């Protein structure tokens, strides 16, 4: 067994060194593709996190017309309290709205000066049992007497999420293209190696080496390139996490961000994908160029 492993390792080493440039190109392509793939997966995870948070906190804001009567207001509140979709109702008066506004824009005296308590509308802040039913609840109260507007917080969020989704899809699409390129490069590298070693493989077949034994160095060579690329990609993702996300985390404290642990958890996935792509590419090209 020791002789086998020694042979295998030395063959893999020789093969990788012989086509150093080709190997580098392969590793770089695998790295880029898997880094993008990993980034896509992490963005997806990040979007899900943000979506969960935001959607859970989504409130239906029912802004009241200034001309609303006390009766209309009371009947609306009663209605809201009886609605099974509604979890809780909070009434924000014009005065409270103004206080909140002052707090939020405390840094901006110009803006504060231009706003007086009477221009901000009073509102009901309604949190829902199931935030997914936002549209249903919103439409129920849209035409209610004394209701000026039912705000659509989700529409704003959805726009944000659409941008994130587009980013993720773009990353995944490029990753896919790159993976195809990586597979082609691996296959090409193996073809070159197979050609360079055709005498050797010929002799191996002649003396009765098993097909597996003949194939293995080539396949391993591909897998080494795939795995190394995947590990570098994982390193790049960790680097990105430790610089970019850490900074964002400080700036946007209310947002839950992906953790280092989650980035680390994607690395095995990338390694697996890298190894699988490499083995598939190896097998395909071996069938064609080694006829074993």
């Amino acid at each position, binding site marked *: 067994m020791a002789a086998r492993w020694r*042979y295998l390792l030395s063959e893999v080493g020789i093969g990788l060194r012989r086509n150093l440039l080709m190997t580098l190109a392969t590793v770089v392509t695998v790295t880029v593709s898997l880094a993008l793939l990993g980034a896509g997966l992490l963005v997806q995870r990040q979007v899900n996190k943000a979506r969960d948070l935001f959607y859970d906190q989504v409130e239906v804001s029912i802004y009241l017309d200034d001309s609303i009567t006390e009766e209309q207001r009371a009947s609306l509140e009663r209605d809201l309290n009886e609605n099974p979709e509604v979890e809780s109702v909070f009434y924000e008066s014009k005065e409270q709205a103004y206080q909140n506004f002052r707090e939020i824009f405390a840094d901006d005296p110009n803006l504060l000066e231009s706003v007086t308590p009477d221009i901000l509308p009073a509102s009901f802040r309604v949190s829902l049992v199931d935030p997914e039913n936002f549209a249903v609840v919103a439409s129920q109260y849209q035409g209610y007497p004394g209701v000026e507007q039912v705000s659509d917080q989700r529409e704003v969020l959805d726009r944000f999420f659409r941008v994130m989704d587009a980013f993720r899809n773009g990353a995944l699409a490029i990753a896919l293209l790159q993976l195809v390129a990586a597979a082609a490069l691996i296959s090409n590298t193996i073809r070159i190696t197979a050609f360079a070693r055709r005498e050797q493989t010929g002799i191996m077949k002649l003396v009765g080496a098993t097909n597996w034994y003949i194939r293995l160095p080539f396949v391993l060579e591909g897998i080494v390139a795939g795995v190394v690329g995947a590990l570098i990609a994982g390193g790049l993702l960790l680097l990105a996490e430790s610089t970019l996300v850490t900074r964002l985390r400080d700036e946007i404290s209310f947002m839950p961000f992906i953790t280092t642990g989650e980035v680390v958890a994607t690395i095995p996935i990338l390694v697996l994908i890298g190894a699988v792509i490499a083995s598939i590419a190896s097998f395909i090209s071996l069938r064609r160029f080694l006829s074993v």
Partner: protein
Amino acid sequence: MIRLDNVTKTYKNSVVALKDVSLEIAKGEFVFLVGPSGSGKSTFIKLLLKDEDPDSGEIFVAGKRLNRMKSWRIPALRREIGCVFQDFKLLENKTVHENVAFALEVIGKPRPVIQRTVPEVLELVGLGSKADAYPHELSGGEQQRVSIARAFVNRPRILLCDEPTGNLDPTTSVGIMKLLDRINRTGTTVVMATHDQHIVDSMRRRVVELSDGIMVRDQHRGVYGYGS
């Protein structure tokens, strides 16, 4: 050890390489396979190695039936057969020792076995002192000896030689033939395809002659040809 029953082989370009050949070679025999180029000698050897499959007929080698043999069993068949070629087929970047050891390494022999057997077989072929030389540093005859050592190191039951002296001068060829004769005396069945009339005539062994794929002669203690 080797048996062919009505074996016919036609290549895709409808060249008939072997036609209805039946032949039995017993264990320990030494058989010359003679005939002009294109008479089917190489096809014969390829069929025994299951490098090619016959169109019809049955082939048995070392107790194994080659027809419909599963491809994963082919390596086991080839470990029973040593092969020597006209062009030696040595790996230029490996030393004599490494070339011979390679044949054992790739079939998974343990290292101690390799370390023990390779010097033995190099001694047998008379190259004990050239173990660390590279093929390009050797003469043609020496290279062929390395190739024979590699073919024989795993103690195959059959040695197939395809024009082993084709690239060598007569004196060197005699040395190679002595070596093959010695290997044959250990009980190894030797089948040698050759053009070399002088060698065939001087050895006086069984001669099988092929002509356009047809076996035209099977003669014990034969010579190269009637007419020559």
